[in-house]
């Protein structure tokens, strides 16, 4: 089974809220210094699902990422987890692309790779949390699609995928090739092994430019974007917190109950 996983490098979603900043004037997130970006956690989980499928079925896992300087780190991370191969798609003309252009860029790379049974994406990229790219790739490749997968297995007719719903799941059987977007319910992604980290560190990840995959530059970049950022801000969620103190924890607890009663909360 040949699996292609799309991975994106994102600002570490675990940064403390105090370190998160935006420049509202330029409508940009100011990356905190000293905290390097990481592979989108959902994409690491997509790699995890790919590895589980490969362990059962055999085959090859190829990783793709669209990004600029340092984007190869996301690919290398996937390789250190156990993926076989990877490519970085990088070109100035990609700058400012929206989800549609991203999906177009990734589809072209998928087509260049050629033989594939499954394309895996994360349910959303933990930076802009858009949750679009995977579905659009399926549309542009014309394959079947299941979103928000918590599990997938190969069956005779193709792929059986469980899709997370609010109160449970639905199971579908779809023909391959298919695109599946992966949700956190697949479970935690494995950590890279030592040898994996070293073999990834030794790899040179090839870079494909727009021309290498036959991308039409007029369909990518900010000029082609179908949506534009109107404003960006940090929400004011602060509340005035009344800290209840006491000689002992029990005393504080008692006071808290009384205060909540006074405030009409209980």
């Amino acid at each position, binding site marked *: 089974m040949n699996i292609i996983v799309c991975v994106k490098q994102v*600002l570490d979603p675990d940064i403390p809220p105090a370190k998160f900043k935006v420049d509202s004037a330029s409508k940009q997130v100011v990356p905190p210094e000293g905290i390097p970006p990481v592979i989108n956690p959902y994409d690491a989980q997509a790699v995890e699902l790919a590895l589980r499928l490969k362990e059962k079925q055999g085959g090859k896992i190829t990783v793709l990422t669209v990004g600029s300087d340092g984007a190869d780190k996301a690919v290398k991370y996937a390789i250190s987890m156990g993926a076989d191969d990877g490519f970085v798609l990088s070109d100035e003309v990609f700058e400012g692309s929206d989800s549609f252009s991203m999906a177009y860029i990734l589809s072209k790379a998928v087509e260049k790779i050629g033989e594939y049974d499954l394309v895996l994406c994360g349910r959303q990229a933990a930076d802009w949390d858009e949750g679009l790219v995977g579905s659009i790739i399926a549309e542009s490749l014309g394959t079947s699609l299941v979103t928000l997968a918590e599990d997938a297995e190969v069956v005779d007719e193709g792929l059986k995928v469980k899709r997370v719903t609010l109160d449970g799941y639905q199971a579908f059987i779809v023909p391959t090739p298919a695109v599946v977007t992966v949700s956190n319910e697949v479970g935690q992604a494995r950590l890279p092994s030592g040898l994996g980290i070293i073999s990834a560190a030794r790899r040179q990840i090839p870079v494909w430019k727009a021309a290498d995959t036959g991308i039409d530059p007029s369909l990518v970049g900010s000029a082609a974007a179908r949506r534009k950022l109107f*404003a960006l801000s940090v929400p004011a969620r602060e509340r005035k917190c009344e800290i209840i103190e006491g000689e002992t924890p029990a005393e504080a607890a008692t006071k808290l109950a009384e205060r909540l009663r006074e405030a009409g909360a209980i």
Partner: protein
Amino acid sequence: MAENKGILICGEVVDGKLAAITAELLGAGKKLSAELEQPLGALLIGKDIEEVAQETIGLGADRAYTIDGPAFLDSLPDLYVALIAAACEKLQPSVVILGQTDMGRDVAPRLAAKLKTTAVLDCVGLEIDPETRALLQTRPVYGGNATAVWVTESQPQIATLRPRSVMAAESDTSRTGEIEPLPIVVEDSAIKGKLVETVKTEVEGIKLEDAKVIVAGGGGIGGPEGFEKLRELASLLGGTVGVTRVPCDEGWLPLTMEIGQTGRIVGPDLYIAVGISGAPQHMAGCSGSKCIVTINKDPDANLFKESNFGIVGDYKQVMPAFIEKCRELLSS
């Protein structure tokens, strides 16, 4: 570009009844319809839905469109995508709003791709820019660390609305409007695959979304046993228990109880957070609570900044006395 006009909400029918999200979509739609001075349409897919379609008119739709089809969870999303896309082709709306629900989050991106436009998911605010008449779509980004407002430059402007982010429309049974069945035939080739199973895990007690009081526990609880105290308090206060991602990842409790960006979005009157640090991804699911109380042993935990009341301490020492006092106060 064709002159797109009107606002179309894609309502949902569950077990033959109008789902709660539909009234919220109509609430948002009504406001936009007034601001844009364009009509509001409601699209419903289901079997024998004349009556519920009439309800949408009472809730503010100028016109209801019905499509004969199965419930979303009993069908393939492909079918819904094809049906709604065909309806949009026919109606040429300028704004399409779906719920950020099982249906909307799956259908909206594909619908956008089919209609050669884009979609903005999980919006918590929708309004019309008075100057440009464009739809301003507000949504949390970066796990709730920031808020973005997007403008779609193609037509139609498709958005999904997060449940409980706007007031539901109120019903006015005297309103009138037409119900128009849309005869749409979907070609077999549009449907890929089959549905083999739909599983619904029943939650016991009160649903998190409906709870007035939630006692939520996080990584600080330390294990499944610790949740006993939380359950005791929740049942005393007539509420229910929720969790952060950590207890789910640890396997203490199921992911269906997770509150947050990727879990449930709740808005109780009282949210008691025990052993929770207050990561933005978690706060995204509970910051709408009226009163937030934090019990955490780390005085620097972020959650204190977003709480109304707090105790710095070990929950194991705080909870027994707190439960005791609550019981006493409630019985008096």
